[in-house]
């Protein structure tokens, strides 16, 4: 059994040795899985909000998609990964509360922000499982690049 590493809110991990990166109970937050097959380096982040621009001073920048992607890529680049070799899979961004002002839209904004940010860095999204109204648990196998997704009362899927 490969080692499992849980990624909490506003965290990311970069790994070289094969392992499973997991996020349990992803709601409106978004999981960004990056994978460089050539260098066998993978990373996963658990991001809460799209944009750091309106954040108060002192707030953890890894809560935001824009800063998180920057941080992931600069670490991966430092390990020798080129952006053109990195592939992405994204999951999450659900609308858990329906028709509730302020809450309902966060997931959709996160999805939009990740797509835009990755495109601006020249990184291809090769698979995604986003939106919907239910939470997800996800397991990213860094050896194969597979992402397994489960929801309450639903069969699991792999992307």
């Amino acid at each position, binding site marked *: 059994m490969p080692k499992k590493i849980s990624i909490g809110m506003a965290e990311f991990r970069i790994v070289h040795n094969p392992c499973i990166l997991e996020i349990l109970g992803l*709601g409106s*937050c978004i999981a960004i899985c990056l994978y460089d097959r050539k260098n066998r380096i993978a990373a996963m982040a658990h991001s809460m909000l799209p944009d750091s621009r309106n954040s108060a001073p002192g707030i953890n920048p890894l809560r935001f998609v824009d800063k998180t992607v920057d941080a992931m890529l600069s670490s991966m680049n430092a390990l020798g990964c080129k952006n053109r070799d990195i592939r992405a899979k994204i999951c999450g961004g659900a609308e858990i509360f329906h028709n509730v002002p302020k809450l309902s839209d966060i997931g959709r904004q996160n999805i939009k922000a990740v797509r835009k940010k990755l495109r601006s860095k020249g990184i291809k999204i090769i698979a995604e499982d986003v939106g919907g109204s239910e*939470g997800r648990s996800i397991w990213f196998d860094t050896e194969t690049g597979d992402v397994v997704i489960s929801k309450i009362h639903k069969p699991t899927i792999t992307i």
Partner: protein
Amino acid sequence: MKPEKLNWLELDALREISSVGAGHASTALSVMTNKRVNVTFPWMKMCPLENVTSVIGKPEREITNIYLHINGRHIDKEFEICSLILAFPIKSAVLLARLLQGEEPGAEELTEMDRSTLREIGNIMVGNYLSAMAEYLDIELIESVPAIASDMLDSVMDPILAQHASEVEDALVFSIKFIIEGQEIIGYFVVLFYSHMRLLLKNIKYFSEIEDA
């Protein structure tokens, strides 16, 4: 610069508000249901936003969340004060709703009637919490309509935590205990502030110092 943390005096004031609020809520729920209902907050913890769910339980535990958003009004200006969340493991949510409706528990899923009862409990709990707060503060507090969702713990907390993530570092988590006709139900009460709340708490501090003098 780090956002300011709440100090012990402010925490103490919040604990005081909570126990007064719990007392009011006990009375209100007893009158509404014609049963003996007692509500208490056995403990309170302050923790970073990111750790709220780990204080409550395992990330995939199925939870029902009742969410209310609170605005304040002062001299024609309205501003955001806090979000309040009542969180129950799904079985406890069903039990709580059924006991208050005077029905048999047993089911594992919430019916529309249960959901509406839980929203009403949200209204009563939060209404009493706020009226306790209003006893300390010179401000009008306005609560939103309660929203309800059930899913994995981390998933149902996500959007609410995210909504505060660009402004505040910390959250308050209380455990909440209902005793209804001898049956015990444990849940959680989470308070997430906006930065305006700091000003309010400065008032609380001021008032509690006057009381202590």
